[in-house]
């Protein structure tokens, strides 16, 4: 161990109580930072994953212009080359074609505007969790033509029960009036209030017949390995088929990306305040230890130690102090977060309702990303380095004569 490091290490432990308190403050801050960053990461990943699995998918393939217009006029043909593309591109975890249109659904005197989605009963579960959200009845299937599945609030607003017949009215692809009767075969509970109030599912074949749409579909939703893999997969698909329009989840849900940004910003501001408060503690400790040793440091300077070496010595002391706190903090924080990662917390009823507003399952989850501890480490060490500047300069600038004369 080089001399300076050894000296610094011994100086740090000269006053164990003081060092202990400073290290404890640092540990406290590090644990909080790791914990809250992981909590936010867990929340955000869950928001993305829930939204993606609710129906959008990690990315969508559609005909040119669909993203901007979202009408039946923009479509893509689900032909052999497109199927081949989806089957053969590595990284596609699942895909599901859909026809999406709007309609007015009525039963006796109740009527509701609905987003009508035609889904492929076999393929849909490979992308979305819609089929798992059924609370009554059954999902759409080829065996039960003209069956319709409704969101719970939609069903309630229509006063519709399983087996009831509903009248569906809309505009077909040709812009002529489209109207038909459907029978309610299932009710699903969707966590997103707007969707729960407005989504109605029929089979892909029924939707294509209703809108007179042939083998066209509005979009194909694709599930990638995870949210981070979506841009890469989108690029790979685009290379193989330049004509198709591809959008990834962050484009499909820009408000979600912005929400996450704002939420993160608020949290980081608070964590920075916390770290700054701790940094003042480090500053004070080092400064006190420097002032106590004025005479000793003066002797070192008088004996010919260069000011730069004294600066380094004091600097090393504060980095050691922060480093010790950081190491202990990570040693406590990381296992803590890993434990919570395996044990998500089910929220109480009131919190749950707030979560549902954002279309989320009421679960509090943690996610430790490798960048999280690294980021915490850089922040703490950086702030400690800034805090140590003043005492280190003070120690190295002193004139030996004055220092020796002091007590």
């Amino acid at each position: 161990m080089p001399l300076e490091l050894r000296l610094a290490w011994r100086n740090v432990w000269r006053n164990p109580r003081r060092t202990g308190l400073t290290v404890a403050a640092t540990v406290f801050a590090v644990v909080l930072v790791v914990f809250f960053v992981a909590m936010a990461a867990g929340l955000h990943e869950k928001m993305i994953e829930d939204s993606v699995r609710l129906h959008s998918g990690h990315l969508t393939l559609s005909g040119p212009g669909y993203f901007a217009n979202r009408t039946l006029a923009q479509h893509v043909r689900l032909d052999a080359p497109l199927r081949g593309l989806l089957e053969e591109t590595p990284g596609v975890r699942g895909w599901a074609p859909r026809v999406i249109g709007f309609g007015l659904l009525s039963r006796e005197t109740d009527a509701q505007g609905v987003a009508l989605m035609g889904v492929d009963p076999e393929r849909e579960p490979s992308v979305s969790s819609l089929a798992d959200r059924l609370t009554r009845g059954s999902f759409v299937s080829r065996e039960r033509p003209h069956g319709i599945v409704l969101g719970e609030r939609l069903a309630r607003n229509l006063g519709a029960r399983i087996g009831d017949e509903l009248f569906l009215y809309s505009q077909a692809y040709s812009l002529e009036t489209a109207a038909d009767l459907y029978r309610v075969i299932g009710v699903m509970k969707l966590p997103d209030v707007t969707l729960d109030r407005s989504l109605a599912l029929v089979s892909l074949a029924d939707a294509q017949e209703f809108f007179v749409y042939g083998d066209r579909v509005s979009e194909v939703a694709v599930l990638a390995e995870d949210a981070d893999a979506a841009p890469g997969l989108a690029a790979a698909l685009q290379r193989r088929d330049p004509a198709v329009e591809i959008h990834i989840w962050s484009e499909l849900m820009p408000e979600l990306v912005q929400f996450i940004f704002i939420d993160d910003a608020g949290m980081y501001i608070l964590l920075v305040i916390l770290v700054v408060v701790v940094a003042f503690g480090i500053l004070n400790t080092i400064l006190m230890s420097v002032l106590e040793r004025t005479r000793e440091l003066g002797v070192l300077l008088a004996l010919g130690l260069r000011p730069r070496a004294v600066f380094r010595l004091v600097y090393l002391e504060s980095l050691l102090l922060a480093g010790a706190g950081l190491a202990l903090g990570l040693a406590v924080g990381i296992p803590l977060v890993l434990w919570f990662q395996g044990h998500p917390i089910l929220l109480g009823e009131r919190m749950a309702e707030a979560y549902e507003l954002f279309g989320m399952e009421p679960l509090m989850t943690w996610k430790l990303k490798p960048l999280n501890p690294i980021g915490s480490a850089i922040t703490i060490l950086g702030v400690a380095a800034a805090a140590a500047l003043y005492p280190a300069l003070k120690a190295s600038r002193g004139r030996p004569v004055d220092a020796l004369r002091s007590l």
Partner: protein
Amino acid sequence: MRRPAELRAQAREAAGFTAAVLRALAGDRFLWRLAWRNVWRNGRRAVIVATAVAVGIAGVVLSMAINFGMILQMIETAISTDLGHVQVHARGFQDDPGLDRLLGDGGRGGIEALEGLAEVRAWAPRLRSEGLLSSARASAGVRVLAVDPAREARITSLAGSIVAGEYLDGARRRLLMGEALAERLHVEVGAKVVLSATDARGDLAGEAFRVAGLFRTASLELDRSTVYVRLDEGQRLFQVGDTISELVVVARSREAVPRLKAALRERMGGDVEVQSWGELAPVLEYFVEIFEQMAWIVYAAVFIAMAFGIANVLLMAVFERTREIGVVRALGMSGPRVVGMVALESVLLTLVGLVAGFALTGLGLVLLRDGIDLSPWAQGLNIMGVGATIVPVVRLADFTTPSVVAVLTALLAGLWPAVRAARARPAEALRHV
């Protein structure tokens, strides 16, 4: 079993000691002067600790003020764009909104109950249902609100949210829609659209309207899926005669809402539902609750971090003065007075930081008085029903809570050094260099 008795004796002793400390502090101005001078003995150190406390407090109070401003705005937006303060419906409408649960005779019963109530600032009738809105290029499911244009303008900010075209006036067959909906349907002001809906008899009805104006509010849901038509035209389209779905009432202030609700309930009897904004949108109230819980966690975290720093400085100060404390003990200063002196030093040091922190907070609030412009993230805010400019809002509690917690923190942090100082045996302390 002697244990409980021992514990009781210890507790009595501690209480007696605390009382003695308080007596010493209350009766002795000299002790205060001593503590104050001790704070400034090592000015540099005191300034650093006070700065840490000030930065911590100002940072937390300002962030909380911004957060709270956001939540208040969310509530105000919900109230001023759609909810109003109190709504009156026919019984059962909330569970099953439909054209078969309406207030008869134009809501006359309700209107009569409203008349003369001092808490009422304005009210408006509405008919609401669902429909399908089609343009030449696309169609979308919409919520139809049939309103009395003049009255609606007094209870919501709708008239002020028009960004293109005009608000509803005397002209026939005009409607208002959100800018976002217009984009989706590819229509502009003046375009023709067809509104189809099922009327009260269950028949499909359709009518052509022209787009009179487009609105933009802080609520994405409203902008994407709501259209406004004139009340009489809505009543004709839905074939409901002169009935309405709801009366929306705005009170003189948010504080008057409970009184207003109670008065309306009493006057109108059991055939109607009278609900406040908090009952209509319970989530808004949860946000306030969740925010308040979060604020405590944040304060606790920052203050614990501060406590380490304060304890450290006090401990150093006490150790430096081992000899001095030994002298005053030898001269007859009592244990409680020594504890009082050190604890007071801790509290005074923290209070200096607190005052500086509040000064910083005040400066921050003055700088941010016009609000923080977050327009690049407007959509993310709009899903929460918040506009792009956020004005921080502080309440009295934002100053009292940190003050109380700061003093408690200072007392706790000062306790160890204080007791250490009081325990010093004069003879040993005097021998100490």
